[in-house]
């Protein structure tokens, strides 16, 4: 039985006890708050503050609210829910204040203590955060799901009753999930105890874009890596963004346990989604106290990054050639914080047959579940406007990004088809684009 078969009971199980997310010693963010000297650089980097008059900005949400809370049991300001968790403030802060950690903690406390658990907003957010579960159900009957999820009256009803915007098209579910494909091909085709990676594919490339996951498999096997595909749950990214830390922690436990076991077997962990790798590397150790969580963080890499470090990827790409349309590349916010925002553009600069242009530092505006919320949709599109304009001004007629929800937004705003860098890399290395 695959891990996916054991999943749905989790999030549909409403009988969970809210547990203290920060078990043991209370987490002390004092040094982080004290490091803030109120330069407000974070505020000028915040894409939400630029368009949302109700949002007081990351400096308030982070160190200021933290200090205010020390006085007593004041409520957390509900505006914390307007933060999209793009984490740009982390990268902007010259003083290394752990802003996103403060936001995640405040949002978790708000949801746990102040949010009405029977409210439409809570239920909607919980469903969006647990995309893993909805996708599991949908993947059982993908064609029916694809029809039903984009059936006009159903979408109208979802917007009216749940507040999920009817403006967006739901992403299509693949006829065959990546894990089904992986099982069908008999797992790894390369065995190599010296070069082993554990692939954290995440929900999206399993259920929606298995081509990305397959590309990763082909690329890594091309370099002689043995690939492990351990059981896994949601990385937690949509849960952090919705303050569902209890859900996130439960999923993190499984992921850490499984990935730590793979690391024990000599593997490094790789992810193709930059928000998944971000969660494993940064949010996990910041938010949870789970055995081996640091080991997992320190041994996790993004898929392209790992090859850049360990193989002569530049040399291999220089020798390759592809036949692809010019592409407008958007760096996901979560890629930026890991120092990955330039790697695809710089790598493919040396590749014949494709021209990849960076559309600049703007945020796509969707930020995972943020842009799916009916009340956030317009802001999400306002934030994305700059990216859409730059995409359309460039030469390319297609787009490229690592992040599945940025890809949704790019497609939604421009109608472009969106490719993952690993798909380009597969064609460059193996000369084929199909699996």
């Amino acid at each position, binding site marked *: 039985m695959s891990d996916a078969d054991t999943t749905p009971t989790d999030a549909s199980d409403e009988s969970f006890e809210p547990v203290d997310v920060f078990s043991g010693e209370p987490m002390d963010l004092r040094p982080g708050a004290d490091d803030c000297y109120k*330069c*407000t*650089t974070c*505020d*000028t*980097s*915040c894409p939400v*503050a*630029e*368009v949302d*008059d*109700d*949002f*007081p*900005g990351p400096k*308030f949400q982070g160190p200021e609210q933290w200090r205010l809370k020390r006085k007593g049991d004041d409520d957390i300001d509900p505006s914390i829910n307007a933060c999209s968790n793009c984490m740009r403030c982390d*990268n*902007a*802060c*010259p003083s290394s204040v752990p802003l996103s950690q403060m936001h995640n903690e405040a949002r978790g406390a708000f949801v746990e203590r102040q949010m009405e658990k029977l409210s439409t907003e809570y239920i909607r957010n919980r469903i969006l955060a647990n995309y893993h579960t909805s996708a599991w159900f949908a993947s059982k009957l993908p064609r029916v799901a694809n029809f039903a999820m984009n059936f006009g009256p159903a979408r109208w009803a979802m917007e009216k009753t749940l507040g999920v915007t009817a403006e967006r098209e739901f992403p299509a579910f693949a006829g065959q999930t990546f894990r089904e494909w992986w099982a069908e091909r008999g797992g790894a085709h390369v065995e190599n105890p010296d070069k082993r990676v554990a692939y954290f594919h995440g929900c999206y490339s399993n259920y929606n874009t298995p081509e990305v996951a397959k590309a990763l498999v082909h690329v890594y096997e091309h370099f002689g890596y043995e690939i492990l595909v351990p059981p896994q749950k949601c990385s937690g990214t949509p849960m952090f963004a919705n303050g569902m830390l209890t859900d996130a922690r439960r999923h993190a436990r499984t992921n850490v346990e499984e990935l730590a076991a793979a690391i024990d077997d000599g593997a490094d962990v790789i992810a193709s989604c930059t928000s998944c790798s971000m969660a494993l*590397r*940064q949010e996990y*150790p910041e938010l949870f106290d789970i055995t081996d969580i*640091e080991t997992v*963080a*320190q*041994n*996790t*890499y993004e898929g392209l*990054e790992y090859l*850049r*470090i*360990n*193989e*002569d*990827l*530049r040399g291999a790409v220089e020798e390759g050639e592809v036949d692809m349309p010019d592409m407008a590349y958007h760096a996901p916010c979560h890629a*930026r*914080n*890991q*120092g*990955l*925002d*330039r*790697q695809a553009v*710089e790598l493919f*600069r040396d590749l014949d047959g494709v021209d990849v242009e*960076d559309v*600049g*530092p703007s945020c796509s505006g969707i930020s995972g579940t943020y842009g799916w919320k009916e009340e956030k949709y317009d802001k999400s599109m306002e934030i994305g406007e*700059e990216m859409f304009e730059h995409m359309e001004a460039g030469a390319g007629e297609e787009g490229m990004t690592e992040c599945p929800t940025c890809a949704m937004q790019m497609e939604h705003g421009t109608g472009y088809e969106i490719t993952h860098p690993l798909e380009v890399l597969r064609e460059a290395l193996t000369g084929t684009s199909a699996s």
Partner: protein
Amino acid sequence: MAIREDVLVVGGGLAGMSAALSAAETGATVRLLSHKKSTLRHASGLVDCLGYSGDDGPFADPYAAMDDLPDDHPYRIVGESAVREGFDRFDSVVGDSYRGGHTDVNALIPTQAGTIKPTARYPASMAAGLASDTRSTLLVGFEGLSDFDAPLAADRLAAAGVPFDVRGVTLRFPKKFRADAKLTRYARALDRDEEPDKDRAPRFDGVRRALAELVRPKLDGAERVGFPSLIGDDRNDEVRDDLEERLGVPAFELAASPPSLPGVRLESRFLAALDEAGVRRTTGNPVVDYESADGAITTVYTDNNGQRVPYGADQVVLATGGLVGKGIGSSRESVREPVFDCHIPHPEDRYDWSATDAFGDQPFARFGVVPDDDLRPLDAAGETEFSNLRAAGSVLGGADFAAQKCGSGVSLATGHVAGERAGALI
């Protein structure tokens, strides 16, 4: 090792970016490693050369004043021609978005605080605001914008003896934002010419026109209008042109305290130039360690939550900044350069690091690495720390950037020299 370049520049500020550009021009492959977004976004956008030295200044001609600087000042080490080359590089990056390149003479630029700063280059958006210009001036601030009090700034400029009449007014921005709205919110509203609020500007479609109509009755003969540095962001020129046309007088931005949009705009011009020059960039993780062999650095390591990524290079430029930029660190015991542990001379007793007069001659302000003629940091015995390491910008000792108003020029000049020499050795 997989990630390898001819020249590695550590630090993404003005010095690091200049070094990377000059190194790339020699034909070397270059990577720029920076911990965070560029420090240019913490800067005013003004690019100074030399304004003061000790009790002297403000200088009209910074080049004429350089000979009198102390021997250990970075300008004395690289020489006047290197300073000129550094500014030439700057001019080629910014094109006509900056002014001041036509002369050696310093410009005097008014700031949002009502002070005047001598500077060598300034954004085109500030050109109509020169303090040496005698046209009468209206400063316009907005309610709720705590960084700028227009009447106060006007009074302070008048008290400083500027050769023009100056008044300040505080208006309600034609669109209502939250009380502590970010400056990016104002800039965006003007960039996109958003619809004003009916109760603030009932008759107009866009905030630009509405703003002009609010300012017009306050002009009262003023021959130019100054705004805080948020008159548009991406479309700064367009917004300014629009306001000028509607008001019939030139409009300008005042230099702001950090973070400022002119600094952010300057950052994006440099990033575009780096991209154009083929410089590879990695931003987001600090450099924490290195390896060396035979007195040369072979590899530096960045850190991401305990995970180390190696970057190899033949030549390395250290441009991590000074005390504020954290390129120089201190504890109760000592002052040190944290990446390569280069020697930084400082008094044994930490009470000698600072002077009791806050605005006096502060020893700590000049702390930094001591370079040889080739900008290579020297150890306590006067030997080079590493044969392939050069330093640029405020990590260098000998200059008091805040007091002398020379930070940008030192970064441009030493960045250029360090990058060019590193690249030439490849």
